[in-house]
């Protein structure tokens, strides 16, 4: 009897102590600016994200200086003039996955939350594909960001080179977070 009780307690404790959070330290975020004059692409492979399948919450932090451009001059303009990375080093997203089922192998869901860039927060909705394999999750999706929404000022001379609408794609692979 005592052994059964102990086993029951052990199973209960084990299930309660299981990780409820998942982490991605090397998330990939890519942005694209398409214009007839020039196409600009930059990739950040060091994005941080934490997913809590129980609460359906997701948080993302992007280090703006960690975007890699094809040309170093683009990197310089991006950080110094447009984003002002010294003042606003990170972009963040905090949101919740609607109707998320933590056990589904594959699902397409809407993530609603707040995206903050240059200290300006805007509500956004992202359609994302979420897959589960063993003890990991993958979330992929894309969204469009209008540069005017975040008060990003482009000099008139360079205006034809930078799209007003920036396309952002992301790919996060989460593993259990042992904190």
């Amino acid at each position, binding site marked *: 009897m005592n052994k059964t009780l102990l086993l029951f307690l052990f199973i209960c404790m084990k299930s309660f102590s299981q990780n409820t959070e998942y982490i991605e330290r090397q998330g990939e975020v890519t942005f694209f600016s398409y214009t007839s004059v020039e196409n600009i692409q930059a990739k950040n492979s*060091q994005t*941080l994200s934490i997913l809590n399948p129980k609460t359906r919450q997701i948080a993302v932090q992007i280090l703006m200086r960690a975007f890699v451009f094809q040309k170093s001059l683009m990197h310089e303009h991006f950080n110094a003039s447009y984003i002002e990375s010294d003042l606003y080093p*990170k972009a963040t997203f905090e949101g919740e996955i609607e109707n998320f089922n933590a056990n589904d192998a594959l699902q397409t869901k809407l993530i609603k939350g707040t995206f903050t860039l240059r200290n300006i927060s805007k509500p956004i909705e992202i359609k994302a594909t979420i897959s589960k394999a063993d003890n990991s999750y993958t979330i992929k999706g894309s969204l469009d960001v209008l540069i005017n929404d975040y008060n990003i000022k482009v000099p008139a001379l360079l205006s034809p080179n930078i799209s007003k609408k920036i396309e952002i794609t992301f790919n996060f692979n989460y593993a259990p977070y042992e904190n």
Partner: protein
Amino acid sequence: MISQKHRNIIYVTVGCVLCLGFYLATATLCLHDMRKAPTYKHISTERLIHKYDNATLSHLVEKVIEIDGTLKAVHTKNEKFTLYLSHKKSKTYVLCELHKDEIHKIPHLKIGDKILVKGILKGHLLDIILLNCIII
């Protein structure tokens, strides 16, 4: 007499060789730049994490630094390789994303090795992030 078709083939071949040469020269130059770039500061992983904990990292952002520390893990994703350096039981890592020309050194690395890495410090999130790293 060379026909127009052969001329076109020659032009395309020369163009491809020039493009390849330019690409290789640029790639080599970038790596050499990091090797030759003057080191702003040499610092241990322990000291760097201490600076992070005390929010005194900002003066090192966008600087070329050399870090010595213990290799805790090597992660790969989409052909990007990142070395995880840490100190003892610290939960904070120093993440060094390797320059693509350094990838051939990975099979020679062992977890627990003491290594010296040079790269550009970009800032921090949960961990401290360096890009364009080389192993020296």
